[in-house]
């Protein structure tokens, strides 16, 4: 099992950042890597179990299922059902924690998955640096004071 962990500090309260990222169907609105997104079968995007179907900017199609959503912990857990990345058993968590001294929050994005051994390094870098850090960079730019 490979684990990727990326964390950052974003200059806005956890409530504010959460309202921007909570929508499981809302990635195109905040993550520049994502071209479009829809929820399959017309379900609500905050119904645990719903499936989002989206395309990355480079044309890859990904389907992910929402496994957990907590407005109390500011966290969301999802798994990949289908993707061009060549990963198995991929489960990721995106979580915010308030930083009490100042209007900022601590953001963590982590994933665990299996893959061919030869691809470990490449996938860790793609997921950690491009996908997760890329998302954080977009949020940081949006909320920059």
């Amino acid at each position, binding site marked *: 099992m490979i684990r990727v*962990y*990326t*964390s*950052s*500090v974003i200059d806005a309260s956890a409530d504010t950042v959460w309202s921007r990222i909570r929508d499981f169907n809302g990635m195109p609105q905040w993550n520049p890597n994502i071209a479009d997104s829809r929820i399959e079968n017309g379900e609500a995007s905050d119904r645990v179990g719903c499936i989002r179907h989206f395309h990355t900017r480079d044309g890859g199609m990904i389907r992910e299922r929402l496994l957990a959503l907590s407005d109390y912990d500011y966290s969301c857990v999802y798994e990949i059902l289908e993707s061009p990345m060549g990963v198995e058993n991929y489960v990721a968590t995106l979580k915010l*924690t*308030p*930083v*009490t*001294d100042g209007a*900022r929050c*601590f953001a*963590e994005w982590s994933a665990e998955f299996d893959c061919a051994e030869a691809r470990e390094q490449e996938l860790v870098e793609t997921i*950690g640096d491009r996908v997760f*850090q890329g998302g*954080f960079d977009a949020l940081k730019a949006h909320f920059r004071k």
Partner: protein
Amino acid sequence: MAPPWQSAPPEGARPSLGRPGGRPVASAVLQHVVRSTVIDAPIDRVWAVLRDFNSHDRWHDVVAESRIEGNERSDQVGCVRSFTLSDGNRIREQLIALSDSEHKSTYCIVEATVPLQRYVATVTLKPVTDGDRTFWHWESTFATPPGRERELREMVGRDVYEAGFVNLRRHLREGGDRLGPGAAAMPSALPLPSRSAVVRRYGGPEVLQPEEAEARAPQNGEVRIRQRAIGVNYLDVYLRKGWIPAMLPLPGVPGMEAVGTVVDVGAGVSGLLPGDRIAYLGQAPGAYCSVRTVPSEWVVQLPAGVEDDVAAATLLKGITADLLLRDLGRVGAGTRLLVHAAAGGVGLLVCSWARRLGAVVIGTVSSEEKARVAREYGCAHPIVTREPRFAEAVQAQFGGADVIVDGIGDAARDENFKALARRGHWISLGQASGALQPIAADQLVQKSITFSRPAVFDYVATNAHLAERAQRVWAALADGTLKAPPIERHSLGAADEAHARLESRRTMGALVLVA
């Protein structure tokens, strides 16, 4: 209410594990206090302070005195610390959970002169990977006497946690955690598994074999390092061949330098902490491994701007270039400098540094391709020769060499004498072609020649000297005076291949083993 201090169990009667102590509950609703912040320091450095259950009197103004009861260690789960606060209050707290993997410490009050009841607190650190900082989360739950909830929540949240954030920041900024022995005890007495490339008999590259090994816990004056990049030097080849058996008795592990992160430090070590990114250079071999325990005297801090493999490729070689050019060659504007193996690890560094000093840089290389690279690094006059034959060209074009940096050894001996200018200086750095036959004093007098045979380790015998020279190398890399050589990477398990490549004379620049 009666002060709990008086009715509590006597010191030494350790409370049972995991049961928060305290007085009967006065208020049914538990108070919950959470405070968090971001500290501008790597998590290992912050954790080294916070995991020590007995450290607070060194950094938190609220705590005047702290000690661990019963002579237990401060990382012993179940140990009890006794605080005297700066306002005279006293608190005894028990460590009920400690996790180095989660960077988490949980403790409870067993008795106190302040009315905090059923108080359980947890400190959690998390790395901010975006910037190498630390997120610090501090929370607790407790009960209070009726009517005092707000007052006590404020006391805990503001006077203890928030003040603690400010105090720890100041402590780290002032380097309080780096002061003196014992300030950052991170004892992990167990050996750690390591992988080594071992020489069990002297011979060709194939005698270097990977083996499982252990790195023992650091003792007095030592640090243990998780290594990421290991510099390969020609000295390692001599050791492997058995040319200097006193330096590498069998079985032995070659390697003089590496780059990595401090895992833990022994007693009596100051200025180094777990998590510090460092490089080291030592006079005893043993660097071909993944985890190693070395004297802290060998270790220097690594600036963030110098990458692991660049540091491993330039520490020993750059320091060698520094002493060749500054101390021995006294190379300056117009010095005619002849560098053998100019496209090698040391050669390229010497060329690029000498060019900046204004020297006329001449070099010997074994191929056109190497001539091209040497030229790129500042060797204005490469001579391609495999013989080696160069004296005639050096005399004809430059009237001789003022300084020769020679790693070839005996095969270049006669040519070196011919190539030297009057009062020239032959610096014999290595003997890749074989051991130099004795040099007669009479031969030197013919041109007033100086002959030097330096051992780098005599020039970095103290940590201050090592740090000063390393700093010159890092600074020269940073301002472009020194151009990092091309680096060829091999895995530690393939050290034999790295040696075969180095001896094949097909490599350019420096070789680095990746642990």
